[in-house]
């Protein structure tokens, strides 16, 4: 075994991960809150009103980062699911399953803020265009993964079954992303590009990117917090979990 896999095994062992995650989580949440607040200040106060949408466009600073996260988290979940199914690594099973509720939360935010934004812009809360529909399907996929996971008794078997479903559902992610290109819809096309100039003013761009960073940090923090609880549940028979229970029980 080379040093890399050794290192991976060390980090991947539940007690080690539990300890490390416990140390990182508060920092991740704090950093997320900090960048988020700066981003929101930039977006809500510093950035000027849009010439077309007036102030309504300010929903963009939560809508778009959440939408990106809804796709990104699904991708992370699918990668973990793949590792879980092929190499049966317990940590990956846990991480995949912990991604699902966070992804569902961001998807719900995207749908809610999108339809709130749609009312003043398109005159309707909801239409059945490709982007909106595929995002709704994404929510159903998340809910299906969560539902399947909780419907099976044995935790590890449940994680594998739900991981399988998550992998099957990954086809939907490119559909969501490219839907505006493949079908002509009401929804905006891409305005932010990683390479090349973005079709958005710099005063609006930097808060947007900062919010995107904040949601990523938040995701990591939430993922670690959830993984800690799940690992405890999964390893309830092991000594380290018992020690943890007695330790936290002693200090009320």
């Amino acid at each position, binding site marked *: 075994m080379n040093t890399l896999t050794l290192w991976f095994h060390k980090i991947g062992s539940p007690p080690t991960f539990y300890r490390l995650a416990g140390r990182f989580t508060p920092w991740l*949440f704090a950093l997320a809150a900090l960048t988020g607040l700066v981003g929101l200040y930039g977006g*809500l*106060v510093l950035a000027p*009103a849009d010439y077309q949408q*007036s*102030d*309504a466009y*300010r*929903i963009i600073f*939560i*809508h778009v980062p*959440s939408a990106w996260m809804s796709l990104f988290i699904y991708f992370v979940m699918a990668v973990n699911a793949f590792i879980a199914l092929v190499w049966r690594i317990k940590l990956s099973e846990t991480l995949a399953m912990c991604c699902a*509720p*966070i992804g569902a*939360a961001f998807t*719900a*935010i995207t749908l*809610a*803020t999108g339809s*709130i*934004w749609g*009312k*003043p812009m398109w005159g309707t809360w909801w239409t059945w265009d490709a982007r909106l529909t595929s995002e709704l399907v994404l929510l159903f996929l998340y809910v299906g993964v969560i539902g399947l996971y909780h419907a099976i008794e044995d935790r590890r078997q449940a994680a594998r079954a739900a991981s399988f479903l998550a992998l099957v559902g990954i086809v939907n992610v490119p559909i969501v992303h490219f839907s505006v290109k493949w079908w002509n819809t009401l929804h905006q096309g891409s305005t932010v590009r990683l390479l090349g100039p973005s079709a958005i003013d710099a005063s609006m761009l930097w808060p947007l990117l900062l919010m995107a960073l904040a949601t990523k940090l*938040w995701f990591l923090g*939430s993922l670690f*917090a*959830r993984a*800690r*609880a*799940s690992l*405890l*549940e999964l390893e*309830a028979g092991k000594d380290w*979990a*018992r020690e*943890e*229970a*007695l330790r*936290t*029980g002693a200090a009320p």
Partner: protein
Amino acid sequence: MSEFLAMGGYGAYVWSSYAIFAVVLAIDYIAPRLHRRRVLAELRGRIKRQQKRTETPT
């Protein structure tokens, strides 16, 4: 200040969006904490039960 809150007439839309954002993330923050507390409490119960089981019959 009230101008800021009015958001050029779109205040209801903008602020309700931000409220939803805040509420969902707050739930996302609390849920794992509650879950961990429940797991730990259950574990302590199990430890206690096992202690009782090993003490009483012998």
